């Protein structure tokens, strides 16, 4: 199988992508939405978009005490999104007065204010949620693959790798699948002001479930083929077994990713503005999840097995 045979090159390619994502995250960092940082966000629409400098001046001259920095970005057909620190209701009315340019067909489309404590709490919760999902998945995979080696006869079975390795490899792949969309967000945050909000965290958690699903289907095939070989007393290298398993599952992997991409793609293209970045995160995650289970998860199993086998052989010799 191509992916197993060329794993060195593929690891290098994937590693490069992952490094680029880490670099983007380290260099630019993520732009968090007000749900996580606290603050006020207002989306307004006009019939004709007023000048940005003009609006900024109006906001400045609204003279709200300690308003500090704010960001004004064009949005929609002729609107703006204004982001500030969390303002009180009275302060907001002053801001609204500044935004309501006379004769410009001003309309407030949506707004949200989040206090700093709620933001911090949600941020912690998001980290905990992702951590808990990752942990549960390791345990589940290790549990589901607990009989992958046949130790029942008391003799140590050294075919392939241990059940924990499956879990750990699945997690390694998961981390990669999260890194890619996060890296993209660091990039988008700088260039188009994309923010990581609660919807994005939801998308990331969904990717966790999806990606592992994809990986598990392949691992499951490896497990089945190992069992079959044991029953039929076929001697086959672990690399070959994994290679066969991959050829047997790639059609399904690609088909499922395609159908998922169809719906996520149409959400990205035709869906409302609130779910654009959500759909983009999912699309990126699904793509990353697909190539990583085929080109990273399975070949990694082989690489780990090879290393363990060599170690064992050098010890016994």
């Amino acid at each position, binding site marked *: 199988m191509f992916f197993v045979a060329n794993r060195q090159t593929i690891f290098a390619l994937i590693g490069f992508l992952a490094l680029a994502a880490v670099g983007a995250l380290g260099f630019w960092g993520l732009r968090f939405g007000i749900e996580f940082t606290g603050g006020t966000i207002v989306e307004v629409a006009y019939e004709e978009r007023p000048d940005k400098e003009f609006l900024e001046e109006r906001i400045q001259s609204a003279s709200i005490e300690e308003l500090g920095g704010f960001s004004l970005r064009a949005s929609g057909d002729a609107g703006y999104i204004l982001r500030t620190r*969390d303002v009180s*209701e009275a302060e907001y*009315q002053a801001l609204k007065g500044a935004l309501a340019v006379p004769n410009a067909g001003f*309309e*407030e*489309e*949506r*707004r*949200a*204010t989040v*206090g700093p*404590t*709620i933001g911090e*709490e*949600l941020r*912690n*919760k*998001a980290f905990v*949620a992702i951590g*808990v*999902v990752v942990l*549960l*998945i390791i345990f*589940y995979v290790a549990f589901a693959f607990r009989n992958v080696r046949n130790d029942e006869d008391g003799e140590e079975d050294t075919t392939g790798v241990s059940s924990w390795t499956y879990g750990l490899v699945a997690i390694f792949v998961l981390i990669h699948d999260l890194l890619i969309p996060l890296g993209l967000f660091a990039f988008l945050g700088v260039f188009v002001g994309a923010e990581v909000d*609660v*919807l994005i*965290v*939801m998308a990331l*958690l*969904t990717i*966790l*479930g*999806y990606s592992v*699903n994809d990986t*598990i*289907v392949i691992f*499951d095939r490896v497990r*089945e083929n190992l069992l079959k070989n044991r029953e039929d007393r076929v001697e086959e290298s672990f690399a070959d077994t994994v290679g066969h398993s991959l050829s*047997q*599952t790639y059609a*399904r992997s690609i*088909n*499922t990713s*395609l*159908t*998922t*991409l*169809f*719906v*996520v793609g*149409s*959400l990205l293209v*035709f*869906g*409302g*503005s*609130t*779910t654009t970045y*959500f*759909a983009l995160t999912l699309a990126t995650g699904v793509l990353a999840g697909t190539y990583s289970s085929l080109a990273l998860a399975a070949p990694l199993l082989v690489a780990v097995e090879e290393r363990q086998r060599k170690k064992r052989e050098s010890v016994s010799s």
Partner: protein
Amino acid sequence: MNLTVYRAWSVIILLLAGFLGWSLYSAQVSPDSESQFKFGLDLVGGSHLVYEADTSAFASSTNRAQAAEAMAALRDVIETRTNLFGVSEPLVQVERASALANTDTPDRLIVELPGVTDLEEAVKMIGATPQLEFKLVAEVEGTSTEPVYEDTGLTGRYLKRARLEFSSTQGMQAGFANEPLVMVDFNAEGKELFAEITRNNVNRQLAIFLDGDLKSDPVIREAITGGTAVISGNFTAEEGRELVRNLNIGALPVPIELASTQTVGATLGKDILDKGVKAGVIGLGLVLAFMLIWYRVPGVVAALALIVYVIMMLSIFMYIPVTVTAAGIAGFLLSIGMAVDANVLIFERFKEELRNGASYEDAVQKGFKRAWAPIRDGNFTSLISAIILFWFGTSIVQGFALVFGLGILASMITAVLVTRTFLVALSGVADKSPSLLQGGFKK
């Protein structure tokens, strides 16, 4: 089970789905139908407010139960206020600081007001806390013009009921005729306190304050033992009615502070909904087309199973009902893409078995048996994600998690029960014209 049973079930499933689909459709075309989808604030427009309640008075752990009681009372007061405001289906709920979270996270009150986009008005209405106080005007030595007031301890806390009356001309000085009067009936404790204050302070002025404003300061003529005080002056009949209403609703049992707000205009919400539906229809169309082109006749089976799945989910949304939000629509779309996964797994296995020379029936049976483990394991991990998301839960996230979790379960059911039933039911046909069913599966 023999073939006839499978065929009967296939017909039943199709009829049932058809019936559900028809009732969903007819509910949508007739706007006055009772069953309608329930849409979230982000789709219909409205305000979402989060208040933090200061329950520090109940800080010690033994008082947690009392804090819970106070929060429930707070909820009731706020709910009454939102109802009076004329909001249709307001949602007021308490979010208790959970045992898992930090101990310093405050108790919260979440208020959802569909259709209310004037946040300023809403906040004012919810935050209105009428405070009624009775104070004695102190006898000040000298010629100070500023009167000094002494607290009497008598406040709105002792209020039993407030009512509006209009003074009659009889027994009243001229000029006060038809003036709105707010009658305040005290409870037993208040009655006693009021009697005591009036008895000890005859000929002094008793000032009545509302929200810190002096309303009137009548002179006490004699001890009042009936337990009813009269507030008069400086308000119109309309203001009097409002005052009575606010006094009866009572002060908030716990001080609250606005922690976060969210408002979505109705036009934006409508736009998001329309676009979400459009994206859903196109996405579903693409998936169906793909299944038909790639798997041919079995693809028809998968397409039917997917349609059954969509109808099943929409029925759940409508009849449970599940509040549909933008995130919920996204979760549902995602689940459509993933629902096919189980079918794809089964078909790929089925194809393999056929390729290995199995008969149609054998291939169906083995395909299902072999595909079950990955379907189960894969969906289980997705279910873990959904459960954690639900726990993570602000209301937006929970909407998504619920839809996503239900979707995973429903897709497993349709794949394993519906697809299988259809495929087995078709086996007689497959024997007669094998090329038909295996069209997409060239050996």
